[in-house]
């Protein structure tokens, strides 16, 4: 028995045999002197089997994600039927008398090289498709598992990373746990795993530290994986699993009900969304509205800027789907750690203190206006709120609002409908916005606090710098005091205030948020059930008590002590 340390991603207890899913590296080895007829037959058998597997993925994608997204798999199938590919592989086998997998790897690499050499970014990415497809066939020939859909017994999935095609075929019946080498809590695969309730941890070098058939057990909240566990450990994990099941049942009992404290203070739990493909999960959740719709995905991984019509269709889709509530659309927040080749952002020494968010939009006015017009047009189909990111000065708010006004006039001039009462708000994520909150509150309809950036800017700490990352804490009194200042400024002007950073779902801080008067929390929908249950167990008077107690806390330790004391 031994333990491997990992990073917790999605909660739950996983127990089962390891199955390593190979897909990113081709490991064919050259074997010469083969029977060419046999090898050609092996190639065609594997090719046909792969076409069948892709058909399953295509149908699943069509059902779970959408028809447009499933089209790529038709292209994958055509590549496997491709006369050029087939004839080159056959010719290579005949010429060198080599094995099928080696011939296919070489021919696949040749095509990849052609695509990789193209100067068109989109076509360059197609090299990945070729790799995806040839790897699948090579793995089939070599008897490796290449597909999460091809195993029909319970197992713990271990892979370098999960591709979208793999996450869309995860069978909860068989996949008892997930271990990948890369990834984080906000990655698409993490969101899907949380929603499907599959325990998930990240272990660097997981595919080499573990091997097929290893028995493992882990708790997705802790991260450590026990290999070949003793019975005593298994028993302990079974107890934990039972507790988790009971918790889930508790949470489920509140489904569909209004979120409120014991003394009937209502708290609005709304959704963060950063990919339109996650929309289904939002619609099925208890969130009635969207508190943060990140629009960066529309601009990332694209060859050219999205048109007004394309953006309009996306905004209309989400607004129509959330017909019972509203959708808060954050305008483009590119820059910082979010790069896109579409924007000419020169290399900066301090990208987080650089050309990003509203700063970029106010320079690239045409891009900004295209987005605003698309949002305005979509507002004719449901309730939309517009939110500007990275605001640090009143001038920025006024300039952005002026541009919005121009967009409205442009639409009026051509008789296009929009919601003339559309609300406009700002993200509060810079210390400047905190100290100016009283004046900013007079200019806008709502505040939304982006805690991730606010913590980083308030503490002046880059959280990816391991030497100082301990300074990054939502429990720092400097951060908590800032939150209070923002909440008070909003209350004074009678505008709404919400939190949309990770801290919104921090179970320990929930009473504090209620205590300082923030009763609107926006988060990943996977976190809503637990947050809702926690709120249902507390009172708003307790919140006020906690807020008062924390006023006197001087550092993180005192904040945590205060939270524990008042929790009793």
């Amino acid at each position: 028995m031994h333990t491997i340390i990992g990073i917790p991603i999605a909660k739950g207890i996983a127990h089962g045999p390891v199955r390593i899913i190979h897909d990113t590296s081709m490991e064919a080895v050259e074997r010469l002197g083969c029977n060419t007829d046999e090898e050609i037959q092996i190639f065609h058998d594997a090719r046909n089997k792969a076409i069948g597997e892709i058909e399953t993925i295509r149908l699943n994608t069509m059902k779970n994600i959408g028809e447009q997204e499933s089209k790529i798999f038709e292209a994958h199938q055509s590549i496997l039927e491709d006369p050029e590919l087939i004839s080159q592989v056959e010719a290579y086998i005949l010429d060198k008398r080599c094995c099928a997998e080696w011939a296919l790897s070489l021919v696949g690499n040749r095509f990849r090289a052609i695509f990789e050499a193209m100067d068109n970014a989109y076509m360059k990415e197609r090299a990945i498709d070729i790799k995806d497809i040839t790897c699948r066939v090579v793995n089939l020939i070599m008897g490796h598992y290449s597909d999460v859909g091809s195993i029909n017994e319970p197992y713990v999935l271990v892979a370098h990373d999960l591709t979208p095609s793999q996450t869309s075929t995860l069978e909860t019946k068989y996949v008892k746990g997930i271990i990948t080498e890369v990834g984080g809590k906000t990655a698409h695969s993490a969101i899907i795993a949380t929603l499907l309730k599959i325990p998930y941890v990240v272990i660097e070098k997981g595919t080499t530290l573990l091997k097929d058939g290893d028995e493992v057990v882990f708790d997705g909240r802790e991260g450590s994986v026990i290999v070949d566990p003793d019975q005593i450990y298994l028993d302990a994990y079974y107890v934990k699993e039972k507790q988790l099941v009971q918790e889930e049942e508790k949470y489920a009992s509140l489904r569909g009900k209004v979120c409120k404290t014991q003394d009937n203070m209502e708290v609005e739990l709304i959704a963060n969304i950063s990919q339109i493909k996650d929309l289904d999960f939002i619609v099925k959740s208890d969130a009635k509205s969207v508190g943060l719709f990140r629009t960066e995905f529309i601009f990332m991984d694209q060859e050219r800027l999205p048109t007004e019509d394309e953006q309009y269709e996306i905004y209309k889709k989400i607004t129509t789907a959330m017909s019972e509530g509203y959708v808060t659309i954050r305008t483009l927040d590119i820059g910082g750690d979010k790069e896109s080749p579409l924007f000419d952002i020169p290399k900066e020494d301090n990208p987080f203190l650089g050309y990003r968010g509203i700063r970029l939009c106010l320079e690239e006015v045409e891009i900004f206006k295209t987005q605003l017009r698309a949002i305005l047009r979509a507002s004719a189909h449901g309730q939309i709120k517009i939110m500007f990111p990275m605001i640090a000065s009143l001038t920025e708010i006024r300039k952005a609002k002026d541009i919005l006004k121009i967009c409205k006039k442009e639409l009026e001039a051509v008789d296009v409908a929009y919601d003339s009462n559309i609300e406009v708000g700002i993200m509060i994520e810079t210390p400047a916005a905190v100290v100016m909150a009283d004046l900013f509150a007079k200019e806008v309809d709502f505040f939304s606090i982006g805690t991730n950036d606010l913590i980083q800017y308030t503490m002046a700490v880059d959280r990816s710098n391991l030497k100082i990352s301990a300074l990054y804490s939502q429990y720092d009194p400097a951060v908590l005091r800032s939150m209070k200042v923002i909440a008070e400024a909003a209350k004074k002007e009678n505008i709404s205030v919400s939190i949309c950073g990770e801290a919104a779902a921090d179970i320990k801080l929930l009473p504090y948020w209620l205590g300082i008067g923030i009763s609107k929390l926006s988060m990943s929908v996977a976190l809503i059930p637990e947050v809702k249950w926690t709120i249902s167990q507390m009172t708003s008077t307790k919140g006020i008590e906690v807020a008062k107690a924390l006023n006197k806390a001087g550092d993180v330790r005192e904040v945590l002590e205060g939270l524990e004391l008042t929790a009793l």
Partner: protein
Amino acid sequence: MVKKDFVLEAEEGLHARPASMLAKVAMKFTCDIKLMKSGKADKVFQPKSILSLMSVGAAKGERLTFVAEGDDEVQAMESISQLFTSNFQG
């Protein structure tokens, strides 16, 4: 032999989806079909092969020349025409 020029209107160029549609159509015919970028007759691509089509690297606005030769050359060119007129929709 029939020969015809088309201008590619697909937004992202001849990428995976339009290429697979074109290859599917071309495969239905027995005649020999060739594709060249206009003005660059030295490099010939195979419309029946999606890989060959994608390696054309044709962007929006590019002019493409198709040559079909064989029994069903007229029908083949007509089907290819339809794809371009519908801008690879459907």
